[in-house]
């Protein structure tokens, strides 16, 4: 297959153009926590499993109770996981006896609700911008009106938080929105407000991180004051510091989250498996950004395709002219 000088140069210049524009695009900027980000701190060592937070969450978000059948017995409002009707759940790790809390051979509590990621996958993947992250508070929330029900967010979330109400005629996405509707009334997250032990507290993420650092700096067994409700509420109680594992869940996971967890048992036992420090949204958006930046690379690729198609069509045409007589000859010969 021959290529003349002119065609070679055309192809070469197109390729150079396409190649030159790719490295010039930087990876998407790494998202950072908004200055006024608010969130929750859940300290599993303080949790007593009373599930007041689950009851308050349902009351404040107008969610109906759930009916479950567990091993042949029927239970009202004993959800096994997050669902379209449960957007906050207390789960228990059971590794042994009920008289040893926060040990691997005992039991421990954990909470699952939206982590309000700094760089949220659900926001990144939403094709209609129904899922949004508030630029001021950093709360990840969604608009039922804008949602088209594609459930990309359900698949994208590494924590399995957004859920879909499959059993409703007009289904919708359900997830924790940090009681943003209560903030308008000057209130804060209901789960934190109702928690009797301060296991869940609400506050600016900066303050929550200071509180975490304070707790981790104290020796296990030291009696200290734990705030209840929100940071700086003045409502405190005194309890001993637990033997925390050296890990704050949400500090680095997928670029950081606004809901942070402390625990005395390793997080993988609480079904919080290791996650990369880089947000998947950052990786995918950087990749997409490189490919589609200014539409130059796709256009160059299209140009190359058109050129190749045209050239082969031309070559085929020349061949057709030459081969047409051959075919006629064959037919004659038959």
């Amino acid at each position: 297959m021959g290529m003349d000088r002119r065609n070679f140069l055309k192809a070469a210049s197109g390729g150079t153009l396409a190649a030159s524009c790719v490295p010039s695009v930087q990876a998407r900027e790494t998202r950072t926590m908004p200055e006024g980000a608010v969130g929750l701190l859940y300290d599993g060592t303080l949790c007593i499993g009373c599930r007041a937070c689950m009851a308050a969450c349902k009351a404040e978000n107008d969610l109906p109770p759930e009916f479950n059948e567990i091993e042949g017995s029927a239970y009202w409002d004993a959800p096994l996981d997050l669902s379209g009707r449960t957007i906050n759940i207390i789960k228990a790790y059971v590794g042994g006896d009920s008289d040893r809390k926060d040990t691997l051979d005992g039991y421990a509590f954990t909470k699952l609700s939206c982590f309000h990621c700094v760089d949220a996958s659900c926001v990144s993947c939403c094709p209609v911008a129904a899922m949004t992250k508030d630029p001021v508070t950093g709360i990840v929330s969604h608009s039922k009106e804008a949602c088209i029900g594609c459930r990309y967010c359900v698949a994208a979330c590494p924590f399995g938080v957004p859920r879909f109400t499959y059993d409703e005629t007009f289904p919708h996405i359900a997830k924790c929105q940090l009681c943003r509707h209560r903030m308008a009334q000057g209130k804060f997250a209901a789960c934190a407000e109702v928690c009797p032990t301060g296991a869940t507290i609400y506050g600016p993420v900066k303050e929550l991180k200071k509180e975490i650092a304070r707790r981790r700096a104290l020796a296990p067994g030291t009696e200290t004051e734990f705030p209840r409700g929100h940071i700086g509420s003045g409502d405190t109680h005194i309890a001993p510091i637990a033997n925390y594992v050296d890990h704050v869940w949400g500090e680095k996971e997928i670029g950081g989250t606004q809901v942070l967890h402390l625990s005395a048992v390793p997080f993988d036992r609480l079904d919080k498996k290791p996650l990369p420090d880089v947000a998947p949204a950052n990786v995918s958006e950087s990749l997409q950004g490189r490919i589609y930046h200014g539409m130059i690379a796709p256009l160059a690729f299209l140009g190359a395709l058109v050129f190749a198609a045209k050239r082969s069509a031309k070559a085929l045409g020349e061949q057709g002219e030459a081969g047409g007589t051959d075919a006629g000859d064959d037919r004659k010969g038959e």
Partner: protein
Amino acid sequence: MLAHSEEECSLDFDAIEGRLGLSRRDFLKFCTGLASTMGLPAGADAAIAKAVESARRPSVIWLHFQECTGCTESLLRANHPTLERLILDIISLDYHETLFAAAGHQAEAARRQAMADNKGKYLLVVEGAIPTKDKGIYCRIGGQTAVDLLKECATDAAAVVAIGSCASWGGVPSTKPNPTGSEGAGEVLGAKVVNLPGCPPNPYNLISTVVHYLTFNKLPELDAKGRPKFAYGRLIHENCERRAHFDAGRFAGEFGDEGHRQGWCLYKLGCKGPETHANCPAVLFGDVSNASWPVGTGHPCIGCTEKGIVFTKPIHALAELKTVTPPIFFARPAEERGTGVTFAAAAALAAIAGAAAGGTAMLARNLGKSVPEAKADVAAPDEQRGG
């Protein structure tokens, strides 16, 4: 179980009335009340009535050590009709420092006499902790240290009942730094005694224990800490009238707030109900009304029956929940899900699908050809035979 004939039940109520100053009706009410406190089956009330009616009055020796006499006061204020007369008449209280009329050598002589007369039969009730430090010099009665007096009286006792938290496990006197080395009666004796902790303990738990002993000639069933199971078998939290508020997450935030006035759960104020074993919510205190116990009046339980809770944890420190027995309906961190198809199953399925597809393809290929080929097949052997 407690079969009783009519003759056994035919009590001499006139005699009881004379001796105890109780009408027949009040006497039977008392016996039925005790039977239900102990959770005894139907018929036990009659057995109790029989036992109480009989003239057999066991000798009781009541010792006081490091205490505030609150246990005795609580017993005296049991408010069922003329109960104090009844309890003093059912038993023969031969030595009680608060109640006896005698004093000094006379009283000590009465104690020795009762012990000698009822050797191996008398009940020893201990009130107050026993100091053990410095050879027990911090509590002496009649020249004897508490340790010596307790050991002397316990040797020939039929049973030892420790009333109150001090006698049960040390109580207030044993609180850190415990300057006198106070211990409970069981610890000092190194033997199992009946513990009736509480500060003060519920008087009906003592009366029930004594009457159980009178009726059945044995002590009620005890738990690992020596406490009668009928009284200390359950957590306060389990029978608490405010429990529904706990389950619904309705907590009083401070004394006098909206939730407190609504009668909400007192957990957040430091209620120790979830870690304290006692029958207070069922039996109540002081016989004054249907809410006459600490939580009923709006104050959190201070855990007065539990070692390591009362006098140890601050009153407003939060309780640990002892009811989280392997949670029956807590979701697990990750619920079990289907694991997808295994390699072997996938291979088997693929083989079946492949065979089906191959068969179908072969069938399709042979469609239309089948008739002539079949004829040819049939013809062939003929040809062979012919050949």
